[in-house]
């Protein structure tokens, strides 16, 4: 058996080999360059509908040239449940429970958006305490939704530990939801003219503990990701959208703001008393996936600021309007007043009627502008309810964003969009 050294010796010594015989002109070279490349067949790849990074049931048909994506077509509708049709068959109060289930990661914001459209139609005043409770629930939902986004978008790119941190922190919000409404996710806590219940005893203290603990937890997250070179490489410069393109393609929410467009419904068209609270609208510069991450993390900090201000200035008083044509009378009145019993019966059996007309009410959901276009024909049910879902608008430019990127970057781009398929499909 020969040793390694012998093998080496047996080889030809390095150096210029024997002089080549001069040849004549060789065979004609293959023409070289992109214009001469043969027409390759593109590979069509189905991503989804059960792909983990689609966060729901989304099918994307990708046309691949090697690892490069040439074209994409998003096939949505797998979670289409016909909520818009269902709204037409339920009274305004019954419709509240549908609104939760569209964007199932921020149900309180859907609740508020829906009742705001009804309140705008019938013109009812909402008491200050109800407004403040709505703001509390909405900002909690925003933090929970961004936490979940952070966890799952990180998971898609390999940040496993982040997922557990994010879900631990989101659990705190779900606990608060549960102790207020009895339900962890589908809160259905709004009523036309206010909210269904006052805050329970001890809830504000529980919320204060949450507000105190969260900044440190967000710091932990940022320490793990914000300056992480792998996180930078995966996100920076990927899926960039300029401000003009962002407006043109109609994206909304953090995607719009990451491109540097200063538009937040809470600032531009304050509702529920947002004008009283001092907070910033975080903006990005490049509009890439990394900026979307930064915008969302900073939004969580701003939400905490709003929560603290609401806790400090929480008004006392009624939490639902005293207009008996719209809101149920309190239990205590039912045994004393015949009129209250009649109102109660009418509201529960028939509901209230709205005037003829159409309104559009909109709120800032974690994903952007969530709008409800409500058409009333004067009955106790919406004649037509069109939802303007932010995820739908944010998913639309997917085709444009993924053209020319690597297949692995599609995961990063889809993650950065933060779409919820229940919201897209309704």
């Amino acid at each position, binding site marked *: 058996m020969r040793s390694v050294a012998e093998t080496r010796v047996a080889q030809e010594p390095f150096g210029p080999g024997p002089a080549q015989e001069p040849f004549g002109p060789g065979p004609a070279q293959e023409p070289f360059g992109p214009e001469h490349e043969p027409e390759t067949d593109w590979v069509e790849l189905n991503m989804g509908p059960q792909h983990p990074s689609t966060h729901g049931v989304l099918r994307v048909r990708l046309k691949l040239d090697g690892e490069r994506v040439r074209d994409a077509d998003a096939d949505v509708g797998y979670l289409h449940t016909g909520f818009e049709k269902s709204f037409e068959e339920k009274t305004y109060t019954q419709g509240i429970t549908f609104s939760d289930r569209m964007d199932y990661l921020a149900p309180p914001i859907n609740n508020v958006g829906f009742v705001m459209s009804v309140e705008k139609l019938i013109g009812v005043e909402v008491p200050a305490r109800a407004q403040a409770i709505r703001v509390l629930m909405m900002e909690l939902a925003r933090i929970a939704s961004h936490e979940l986004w952070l966890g799952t978008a990180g998971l898609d790119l390999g940040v496993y530990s982040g997922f557990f941190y994010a879900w631990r922190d989101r659990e705190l919000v779900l606990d608060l939801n549960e102790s207020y409404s009895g339900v962890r996710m589908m809160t259905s806590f709004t009523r036309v003219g206010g909210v269904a219940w006052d805050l329970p005893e001890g809830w504000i203290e529980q919320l204060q503990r949450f507000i105190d603990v969260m900044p440190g937890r967000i710091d932990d997250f940022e320490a793990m990701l914000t300056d992480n070179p792998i996180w930078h490489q995966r996100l920076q410069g990927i899926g960039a959208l300029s401000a003009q393109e962002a407006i043109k*393609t*109609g994206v909304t929410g953090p995607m719009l703001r990451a491109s540097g467009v200063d538009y937040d419904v809470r600032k531009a068209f304050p509702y529920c008393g947002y004008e009283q609270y001092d907070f910033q609208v975080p903006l990005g510069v490049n509009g890439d996936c990394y900026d979307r991450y930064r915008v969302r993390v900073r939004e969580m900090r701003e939400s905490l600021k709003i929560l603290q201000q609401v806790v400090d200035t929480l008004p006392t008083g009624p939490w639902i309007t005293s207009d008996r044509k719209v809101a149920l009378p309190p239990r205590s009145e039912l045994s004393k007043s015949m009129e209250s019993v009649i109102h109660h019966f009418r509201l529960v059996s028939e509901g209230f009627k709205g005037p003829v007309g159409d309104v*559009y009410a909109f709120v800032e959901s974690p994903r952007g502008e969530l709008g409800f276009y409500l058409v009333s024909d004067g009955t106790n049910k919406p004649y037509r309810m069109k939802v303007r879902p932010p995820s739908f608008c944010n998913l*639309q430019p997917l085709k444009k964003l993924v053209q020319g990127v690597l297949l692995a970057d599609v995961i990063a781009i889809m993650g950065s969009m933060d779409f919820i398929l229940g919201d897209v499909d309704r």
Partner: protein
Amino acid sequence: MLVERLGNRFTQALRESSDFRGDLSIVVDPNAVVEVARYLRDEEGFDYFLYATAVDWPARDPRFTVVWEVRSLANKTRIRIKTTAGMPEPHVPTMTDVWPAANWHERETWDLLGIKFDGHPDLRRLLMPPSWEGHPLRKDYVSFGEPVIFSDQKLEGLEPDAIRG
């Protein structure tokens, strides 16, 4: 005032305008709706597309009201552009040339309400499967259940079992 400027410029096309609860709506002739939209985008700064949809009024003629709503991010104003489309083949011009973001919204409106958008680059069903029949958000579309024929009834030329199978 925006409505006055529109009225002066599009004397024929602008049918009516309303301001209900602070929401400005205009009803425009379907032939002129793209022209009005271009004016709104270029001269009045309505740069941000919100949504497109339609409302089905079976008793009216024309039956459908098609709605687009747009916003001016700079002026913080909104306007709802409405037009009408009648049976049997309701169709209106597309807005995708003016606001590209209208693409999916108009596809959805075609899918759920059966309004054809003339000139739309990619008018396919969006939410329902391609093989779906009918347009679910129309008022005459039954949203749940399936036709049941009882043993004492007979549908035109069909035995009860044939329907079940």
